[in-house]
């Protein structure tokens, strides 16, 4: 992930329509989301929305204040860059041919990507890592012909023994 972005974790009540409320605030106040992931947490009452945003374009204090005002939002935390462990997952489908097969395999093994589906014409690979690594992998796959790809966006945790929810 580039230096120009930051990640926030938003804990919200695990209820119908809450994601809309959060994202609608972003639209209305003109905040631009780079990536967004949502999922359950250790406490089933809360979901966690992990959002990455560009640093330059975002008034961070205003964003956090506005998020905190939303009724269903329990907690908002900026993940401090030095403490953050950030990962993304990508599935990518590339063209497969006898000439390129070996090279794709080699590249995959350098990046520790897994081949998860295989046919004579196409290969499907899975890769996890930080954003830079995934970007680099895409660049390496381009010459083979990318058929389709899909990235999850960033999930992130802070190092250390605590849970953000109980912090």
């Amino acid at each position, binding site marked *: 992930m580039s230096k120009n972005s930051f990640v926030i974790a938003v804990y919200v009540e695990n209820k119908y329509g809450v994601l*809309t409320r959060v994202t609608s605030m972003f639209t209305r106040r003109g905040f631009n989301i780079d990536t967004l992931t949502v999922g359950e947490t250790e406490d089933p009452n809360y979901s966690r929305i992990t959002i990455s945003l560009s640093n330059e374009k975002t008034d961070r*204090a*205003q964003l956090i*204040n506005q998020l*905190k005002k*939303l*009724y269903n939002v329990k907690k908002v935390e900026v993940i401090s860059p030095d403490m953050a462990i950030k990962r993304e997952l990508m599935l990518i489908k590339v063209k497969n041919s006898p000439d390129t097969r070996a090279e794709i395999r080699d590249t995959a093994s350098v990046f520790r990507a897994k081949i998860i589906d295989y046919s004579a014409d196409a290969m499907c690979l899975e890769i996890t890592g930080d954003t830079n690594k995934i970007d680099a992998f895409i660049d390496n796959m381009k010459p083979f012909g990318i058929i389709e790809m899909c990235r999850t966006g960033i999930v992130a945790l802070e190092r250390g023994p605590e849970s953000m929810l109980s912090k």
Partner: protein
Amino acid sequence: MRLSGAEIVVETLIEQGIKTIFGYPGGTVIDIYDQLYRNSDRIEHILAAHEQGAAHAADGYARASGEVGVVLATSGPGATNLVTGIANAYLDSVPMLAITGNVPNSLIGRDSFQEIDITGITLPITKHNFFVHRVEDLADTLREAIRIAKSGRPGPVLVDIPKDVQGAKCEFISAKPVEKKGGVPADDADVAKAASMIAEAGRPFIYFGGGAVRAGAGELIAKLADKIDAYIGCSMMGLSEVPVSNKRFLGMQGMHGHYASSKAMAKSDLIIGVGVRFSDRATGNTSKFSAGARKIQIDIDSAELGKNVDINLGAACDICDFLTKLIDKVEAKQLPNWEAKIEKLKGQEAEQEFTDFLPADAVRAVSEIVTPDTEIATDVGQHQMWVAQYFGFEGKRTWISSGGLGTMGFGMGAAIGSSYGSGKRTVLFTGDGSFGMNLNELATAVTYNVPLTIVLFNNGVLGMVRQWQTLFYDKKYSNTTLNRKTDFVALAESFGAKGYRANDLESFKKAFADAYSQEGPTLIDLTIDKDLKVLPMMRPGGTFDKLIIGEEAEE
């Protein structure tokens, strides 16, 4: 007690101390209306002419009474007609509960007859909203909605109730009225920092807004000003919180603010913002706004701190608590140089000739006739600004005007609501354009014999827009000359209200004295010139150094 959802709605409102609600019936709220009928001795329902009028009435009721205003409407068009009223309450932080019916759960999502996703539509203009899936959640949802509406920074909350939930039954246990959550207490360190900034300041200025009105902070503001020799100004939303007779109060700020007030804030070296968001209309170019002054901002809503202008100290807390502690902590000061500067500005203001013209005189005349606790409502346009500038507000919370949204058509509904909220005669100043938007509520006023006197400044134009066209669009009057043939006196009479015609100060005073002493609604059509201007004027995005004060801008 096992009650139906519709019964629960009415019982919960009564339990929460709601005595008056405004609304309009329809298919998906007919069960609730049935219960209102059966309980008409316990809760009063005012039938408006249009849901927008009902929403503005709930808004006006809340502003005048300080309580939560409640509006009820049916699904589909009933609900969408509320939207402007809800947005208006949102931008002015007015506590409001909007209840809508919706099609039964089984029909939701199928584009059924009069089905509208009103929680979706109102998402960005409510503090929060709820869709009630189950009757078991209904009572608590309504209670929570009321709590949210009045807690912290107030605002509108909408509760959408599908029809099957209104018919379903469950156990109802009545509860106490919900307490509003106030702001957090002031932080001593912030108070100390503010006190030291004041100690260093030579030209302190207190600038307050609607937040100070909601908190009732007027007396504390005056006390602080006395102690530190500061002068006071307010945003349009702050009007009536500090009486104009207070010598330190210089009046309104902003695009059409009072001359001395705007100039004094521009010259000050410390601005203490109290419950005010430094909106663009009030500050002009926010990046150039009072660049030389340090700024303190005190607001119950932390998201307001530094949102529009950069500040040196922000405190998100209960305003009154902060001011009380600050008055205690701060050293008294005397600043004769500052006083001399202000006196000079006041002198300059008094010399300007643009204060003497018919609508200004009419506003001043009303000011002298009515009791100080009279609610003064307005619509939006030049007439609104003239009232803001020339009315001598002495009673707290007597200014009922649409600030943030600037909603033409707000006046009629709001004035009716304000009469209910205050239990007294309200005076509405409106314009021929604005009145045209919701004059149907005259029917409501007549039906309920609402004590309301309407002063219509009839210039035959959309005066405020025309003024911009005069100043910035080369006098090309595109679509602002109304050319209507409406006879407003005959119109008032046809609705059943008493009408008066006036065209100069004498005839106006006479008409007003009579109109004000009647029982029900009255309307005075005052003909005024179409080329009058609201002055001074700061250019949109301009600064207070260069105001338009006559034909020319200041150098």
